[in-house]
């Protein structure tokens, strides 16, 4: 395994409390520093890969906060993904995750599975559930799947209203396509209102991050190559994502994984320059949306949860989103004490470690509730599942995507 990063770690420990898992568990082995030292110990053959080590490395949300804050520039995220990959090679993968990855890497099967939804049940989810809970979330609080996948609900090309400002490609991600169609419709509405032609390539597949963050580099590669080939077009203004995690994958992950696998990253690199989170894109072209807001909108109290993959993205960050929210007419933005901390969802973390995840999310909910907000916006569908799924009283604090808030704030005539 590539160990240059391990040598960079001076064991200063400054990563400890930036790690949401360490903050709850308070044990060195789960800390980022601890994990780096385990990899070092394995390399020096002072320690061997074990079930215990597998469990330790699963206790990571892949939020990237340690990497972002490390003064010595250690790439914990890449080290941990490689280690997970090594563990999978030695031990194989948990069968439930295998099922999940199989679906995510085979789009047509995912579509087939989603047809079961027509019988009114979350069939896939129920199979993965332990009794009435899926990880830390009560099954009844899981969102219902879209009855028809979002991409089947809209045409491949949606023309803008008014003067054409450009064409954008929309990478919907699995969550919008299969779960949160409402986000997808809001994205299309807002972009076309701004004057952009929205093109939604039908052949797009899962971004692959659920696989590669668990160390399944080769499984992810097929998806990465499909998506890069599909989205790398000249002439488009941007490639829009509505999911923080897909954004991270398209922007950073693809290049790094291809480099890791000694594959050619040039297409991925070119693509990465065009990827924009929807909120980031709106913020950059705010003048195109501003005239369409309804100035008479009654005031609404809004708080924000910064998804890890946006907060830790150098291009987006939290202040950009907060400033955008404050510019929407009628929005009374109130910052929660821990706006910038992870919700504890973390890919399959909420499923693998429901107790730790629950502690993390309950603290988030407490602080968000204390702001007195009516709406809790977050630009990551997975955070939305985790936050709304754990709210005791989902009616009093509705969790939505920032783009939905913007759609709701548009003038009636625009609607």
């Amino acid at each position, binding site marked *: 395994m590539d160990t240059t990063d391990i040598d*960079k770690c*001076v064991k*200063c420990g*400054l990563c*400890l409390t930036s790690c949401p898992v360490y903050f709850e568990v308070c044990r*060195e*082995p789960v800390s980022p520093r601890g994990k780096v030292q385990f990899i070092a*110990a394995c390399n020096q053959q002072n*320690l061997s890969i074990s079930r215990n080590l597998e469990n330790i490395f699963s206790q990571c949300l892949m939020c990237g906060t340690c990497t972002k804050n490390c003064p010595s520039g250690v790439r914990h995220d890449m080290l941990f993904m490689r280690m997970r990959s090594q563990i999978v090679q030695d031990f194989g993968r948990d069968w439930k995750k295998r099922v999940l990855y199989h679906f995510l890497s085979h789009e047509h099967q995912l579509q087939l599975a989603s047809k079961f939804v027509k019988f009114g049940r979350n069939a896939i989810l129920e199979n993965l559930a332990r009794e009435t809970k899926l990880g830390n979330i009560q099954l009844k609080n899981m969102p219902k799947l879209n009855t028809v996948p979002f991409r089947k609900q809209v045409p491949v090309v949606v023309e803008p209203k008014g003067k054409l400002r450009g064409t954008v490609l929309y990478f919907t991600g699995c969550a919008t396509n299969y779960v949160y169609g409402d986000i997808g419709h809001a994205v299309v509405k807002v972009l076309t209102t701004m004057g952009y032609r929205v093109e939604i390539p039908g052949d797009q597949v899962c971004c692959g991050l659920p696989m590669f963050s668990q160390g399944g580099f080769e499984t992810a590669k097929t998806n990465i190559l499909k998506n890069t080939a599909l989205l790398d077009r000249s002439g488009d203004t941007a490639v829009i994502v509505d999911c923080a995690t897909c954004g991270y994958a398209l922007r950073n992950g693809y290049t790094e994984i291809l480099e890791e696998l000694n594959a050619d990253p040039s297409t991925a690199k070119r693509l990465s320059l065009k990827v924009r989170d929807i909120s980031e894109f709106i913020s950059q072209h705010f003048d195109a949306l501003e005239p369409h807001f309804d100035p008479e909108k009654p005031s609404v109290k809004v708080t924000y949860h910064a998804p890890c993959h946006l907060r830790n993205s150098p291009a987006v960050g939290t202040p950009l989103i907060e400033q955008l929210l404050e510019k929407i007419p009628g929005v009374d933005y109130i910052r929660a004490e821990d706006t910038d901390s992870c919700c504890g969802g973390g890919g399959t973390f909420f499923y693998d470690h429901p107790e730790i995840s629950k502690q993390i999310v309950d603290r988030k909910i407490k602080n968000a509730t204390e702001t007195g907000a009516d709406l809790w916006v977050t630009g990551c569908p997975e955070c939305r599942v985790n936050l709304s799924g754990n709210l005791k009283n989902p009616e009093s604090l509705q969790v939505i995507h920032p783009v939905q808030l913007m759609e709701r704030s548009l003038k009636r005539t625009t609607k």
Partner: protein
Amino acid sequence: MIAEEIKSELKQVVGEERFFDDPEEIVSFSYDAYILTSEPDVVIYPKTTEEVSGIMKIADREKIPVTCRGSGTNISAASLPVKKGIALCFTMMNKIIEVNTRDRYVIVEPGLINGELQKILAKEKFFYPPDPGSMNVSTIGGNIAQNAGGPRCLKYGVTSDYILAMEVVLASGKIVRFGSRNVKDVTGYKLSSLFCGSEGTLGIITEATLRVVPIAESHRTMLATYDDLEDTANTVADIIGSGILPVAMELMDKTVINVVAEASGMSLPREAEGMLLIEVDGVEEAVEKEMSRITEKARANGARDVTVAHTQKESDDLWAARRLAYGAFARLAPNCIVEDVTVPVSNVPKMIKATREIADRYQLHVGILAHAGDGNMHPLIAHDPKDKDELRRIEQAAKEIFETGVSLGGTLSGEHGIGLAKAEFLPLVMNQDTLDLMADIKKTLDPNGILNPGKFV
């Protein structure tokens, strides 16, 4: 090795879920932020004073070494279990028992993170002054055991100045309590001074009552840059000598400035030879006046630029950059040693000059960082532990730095502690009778020598 029946006895004290002897847990307690490693036999996370007492009774009876640890961020190997035995980790014993700003104290458990305490106090417009570089990670228990300092200790004093009362478990397992909630308290020996800074060799801190102070009405942060490092040091001596007492005066040389700029992405004056980060606080009018006097002094001593942070964010960013220095310096090489020699402030210019000369003579990559206002030097030495020749040169250079510091009326360590790193140099600052006195105290409190054995006493 600890026998299986003793292990089960220890398990009974804390329960299965807070007792560990698997290889992973052991490896993760084999290091702190210093370069050496040594594995314990078992790791235990107590949550109550009674549990600590129960563990100590068994350990004392069986003569098992016990090394306490918080977040393991110290850089003198003070929390390294060099004689194996039990690593006693306090991160799960981390509650705030009472916050009382009316009477200006808080009562906390040892595993509480310093930064978490600051967050709670900030809501009440109070703060706890000791602010070691590790404050967002390190625990109050560790801070007390090491008598931690930090930048703002220049004005506010160090950890030992803020302890009102303590609960300590002795090696025997006996629980002692001393002090009170009063700033004025001369009832008996001031035992907190004995345990604070004892580095886990005399007793185990299980609760502390700390003095807290209101946040000043107004704060200002400024940055002075120089073309000559000596001018930077002279400014510090001049300001302190003139009777102005800033909260903090942080000095960085060119190497450190560049490393920090690189790591933080901040625009710092990269071509400057020296930089001073100065903070003052107080009532608005006084702050204004002090700032202009400091600016005058800085310019008179050759500062080419003096800038004042205009917003809280600008000021926070400057401090965040300063806190990055140690970790960021380590980017230059696989590891980084930071020394801690401290001299009277009038000798800061001499000490800096000498350090630079020694570093050059031994061909070491050294950056100079200092809490300059109180003479607390932090030369950072980037190095590769695999390079044995370089390590030998570092040892030689460190010895000369210590000797120079002592000859200038200074001391070995201002805030990092002695631990293992500087144990051999104690005779430079203490005669044999004094060392014997420390050994006698240790023997009285810990007759079996089980508390953090193998360290400086």
